[in-house]
């Protein structure tokens, strides 16, 4: 046990100097550890194109902790990319170096100066030397020379490699790589559309590449792009590629332009953000990302105008059967059955395969049709790739002459853009064996062949069909007018529509009356009361007091019958006296009417006038 303790003590004394050598210098102040603190700055290249960025390294020697401000330079943009610390202990002396790395970009070409980076350490300020750099414009013929030497010229070459200056190229750009730039109208050409987005951007595609303008037709385009990472002139890009085919509509020189919508999540400049922890977190990129704010920006990438020359198809040597097919094709012909009778249909199968605009490939045509009845052919296209495949035509042909020994050759003409000439493909005649269609006895074998042929029936000449005729001239018109423009129809339909619109209020009124029957009764009584009042007026004018009395009494009875829900005839003076107040005018009127009726004395005119006015005032609404 004691021996073990001795061993532990021995180990302790062995590791103690090592521990001190490694960690104690870190605890000492900088002034004790090192005497010289220097700040230096260096650019990875002092001349670079506007489409690229260079690295700025700020090196602080002689200290293990320092927080330099973000470098400044008018017209330049600095992006913090990280830091590293190196510590050395040589011959009892420690030395530390902190290296801060920034990415430097410029918005436009020019000569720029990076101001000295000033660092405050132990109440003393140290500064780096100022730096100068030249930002070059983009060359028109291609990507400008790569100062870092890490570009991949093969990725971008020729016209399509031209990077446009401007804000769009700081996030991405789009280019077209057509198979040819000199084409013919209707010629199908392959092309590749490439979109490049800077590595690290969060991009969402909002559309596929779209063809702008009406000079070309987009026949096919990959639904999903291929994605690879590529490096162009020292800058990492994500490359998206679509393959497609286009054709030109008309002759001339037209720009081929595609555009595409995308959304970007753009981080708001970290230099401007406020550290909620007052610099406690330092410049750690993790916290930079954590606290960074992003905004969504819609961008539209547009390819540069790529002039395409559409040359006219030559008229010289143009075959008569040329249907507009342009490309490179081959022709294969087969027929079934090869042994048939006159009048039996034979299916002619013609296959055109190759590359080109199959839309305009039409059925090959028989070079001779004498002795054949032909029907229109039907074509089906099978494409392996856009613009490449085969089109098969099936045509029914019927031999009408027994002398036919072969199916005539078929021919197909197309224009070969590579040869700039028309090509006509012809098949070989296909031998067939025809038998007689009639049930006539076959000629004897002993007969010479010549005679057999002479006895073979000639194809029947079709009899002209009788033309169907009408013998009545009928109603003459000077224009073919559709029914909906004829006046009678318009009037009839208008009336029907009016009826429909009228039916709605009528239906509503009817329903209302059905739900409230008292309103109908009230209306009816009102009409009757009006009629009685008029009769009273007429009777008064004619001094017919009996009629006056009758109508006045009936009016009062009907009025109260409606209110008391009894029959009008059952209402007497006693009922009025019982239900109405003592001074009610109708009690007095009804009493006067009773007396006059019983006494057969005529009512004075003034009394009748008074009764009429009272009745009218009280009964009519």
């Amino acid at each position, binding site marked *: 046990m004691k021996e073990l303790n001795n061993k532990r003590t021995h180990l302790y004394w062995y590791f103690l100097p090592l521990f001190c050598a490694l960690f104690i210098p870190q605890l000492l102040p900088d002034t004790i550890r090192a005497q010289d603190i220097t700040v230096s700055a260096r650019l990875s290249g002092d001349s670079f194109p506007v489409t690229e960025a260079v690295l700025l390294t700020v090196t602080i020697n002689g200290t293990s902790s320092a927080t330099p401000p973000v470098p400044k330079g008018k017209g330049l943009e600095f992006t913090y990319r990280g830091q590293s610390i190196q510590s050395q202990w040589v011959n009892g002396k420690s030395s530390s170096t902190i290296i801060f790395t920034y990415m430097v970009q410029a918005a436009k070409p020019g000569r720029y100066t990076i101001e000295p980076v000033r660092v405050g350490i132990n109440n003393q300020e140290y500064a780096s030397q100022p730096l100068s750099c030249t930002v070059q414009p983009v060359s028109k013929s291609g990507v400008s020379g790569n100062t870092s030497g890490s570009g991949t010229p093969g990725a971008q070459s020729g016209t399509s490699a031209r990077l446009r200056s401007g804000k769009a190229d700081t996030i991405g750009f789009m280019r077209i790589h057509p198979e040819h730039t000199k084409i013919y109208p209707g010629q199908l050409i392959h092309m590749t559309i490439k979109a490049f987005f800077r590595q690290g951007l969060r991009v969402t595609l909002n559309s596929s590449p779209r063809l702008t303008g009406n000079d070309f037709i987009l026949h096919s385009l990959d639904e999903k792009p291929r994605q690879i990472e590529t490096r162009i002139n020292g800058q990492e890009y994500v490359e998206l590629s679509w393959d497609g085919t286009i054709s030109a509509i008309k002759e001339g020189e037209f720009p081929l332009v595609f555009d595409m919508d995308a959304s970007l999540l753009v981080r708001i400049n970290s230099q401007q953000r406020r550290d909620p922890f007052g610099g406690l977190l330092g410049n750690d990129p993790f916290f930079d990302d954590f606290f960074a704010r992003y905004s969504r920006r819609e961008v539209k990438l547009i390819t540069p105008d790529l002039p395409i020359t559409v040359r006219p198809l030559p008229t010289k040597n143009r075959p008569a059967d040329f249907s507009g097919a342009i490309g490179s094709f081959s022709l294969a012909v087969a027929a079934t059955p090869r042994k048939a009778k006159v009048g039996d249909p034979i299916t002619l199968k013609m296959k055109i395969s190759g590359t080109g605009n199959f839309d305009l490939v039409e059925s090959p045509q028989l070079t001779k049709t004498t002795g054949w009845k032909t029907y229109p052919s039907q074509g089906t296209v099978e494409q392996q790739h856009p613009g490449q495949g085969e089109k098969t035509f099936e045509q029914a042909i019927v031999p009408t002459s027994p002398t036919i020994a072969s199916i005539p050759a078929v021919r197909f003409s197309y224009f070969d853009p590579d040869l700039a000439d028309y090509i006509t493909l012809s098949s070989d005649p296909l031998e067939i064996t025809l038998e007689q269609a009639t049930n006539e006895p076959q000629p004897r074998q002993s007969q010479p062949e010549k005679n057999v042929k002479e006895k073979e029936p000639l194809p029947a000449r079709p009899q002209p069909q009788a*033309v169907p005729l*009408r013998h009545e001239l009928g109603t003459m018109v000077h224009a073919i007018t559709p029914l909906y423009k004829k006046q009678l129809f318009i009037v009839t339909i208008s009336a029907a529509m009016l009826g429909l619109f009228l039916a709605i209020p009528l239906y509503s009124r009817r329903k209302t009356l059905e739900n409230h029957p008292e309103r109908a009764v009230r209306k009816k009584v009102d009409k009757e009361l009006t009629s009685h009042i008029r009769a009273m007026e007429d009777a008064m004018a004619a001094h017919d007091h009996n009629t006056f009395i009758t109508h006045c009494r009936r009016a009062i009875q009907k009025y109260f019958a409606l209110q008391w829900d009894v029959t009008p005839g059952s209402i007497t003076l006693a009922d009025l006296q019982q239900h109405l107040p003592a001074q009610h005018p109708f009690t007095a009127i009804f009493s006067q009417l009773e007396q006059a009726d019983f006494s057969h004395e005529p009512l004075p005119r003034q009394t009748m006038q008074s009764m009429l006015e009272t009745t009218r005032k009280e009964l009519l609404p």
Partner: protein
Amino acid sequence: MMKYPIITAIYYLLFALATICHATENTPEALFESANQDVVQGNYAEAIHKYHQIAGKVGVSAPLLFNLAGSYAASGQTGKAVLNYERALRLDPGSEEIKATLEQVREDAGLYRDSTPTYERYANLLEADQWLMISAAALILLSLTMLASASGKVALLASQSKWITACSLFILLLSLPPALLCYTSWNSYVVTGQDATLQLSPFAHAAPTGTISQGRLVKKIDQHEHYLLVEDFAGQHGWLEQDKLEKITDISRLTNSKENTMAGGQGFEPR
């Protein structure tokens, strides 16, 4: 002359008779009958000329267009035949005879129609005017039923009213969409020119994109000078010279053509 009153009278009588006979010969009915005789005798050119004369004088009718179309078909002018059968069908949409003859002409010329969707086959059961007539009848019945039901003046049971209303609406729904669909092709064109070549663009030396048979129905999409951008019912499209096609409903070429006023002549094609 007055010395011989009888001879003078006979002379005037003969003159009057000749005038009457001439007038009778020149009536549209007489000309129509004469044209029909020409058709029977195989003088299609003469018959067509006479039918055009009638059209120029008094307009067209379904029988006139039917006979004219028949003459064209017999003389091998399928495009004109289809055009005038289509016109005849517009004027007499219910005629099974015209439909059957038109189908026969199409079949003989190999103008087969591609398979159409079910709704189009349903719409093609009747002509546009026939569908619209059914729709109108259903609408009138619906209107009368609702008026009667709303007014309460007509003794109509509620259940009867509901049934009639429902049936009217059902018929309206069945007939109005096909009517609208048929009217979309009311103003179609018929290719009448021989060797009609569809072109890629509306210029004289533009590249051809295909040929289109005479008698094919096409729809006009656009026009540039004397070229029309057309599309047939199989989807094939291209620019075609205006002279190579005729609008079905436009009979002005028929009624205003020069040969209507001609006494005779070789040509009978309206220009």
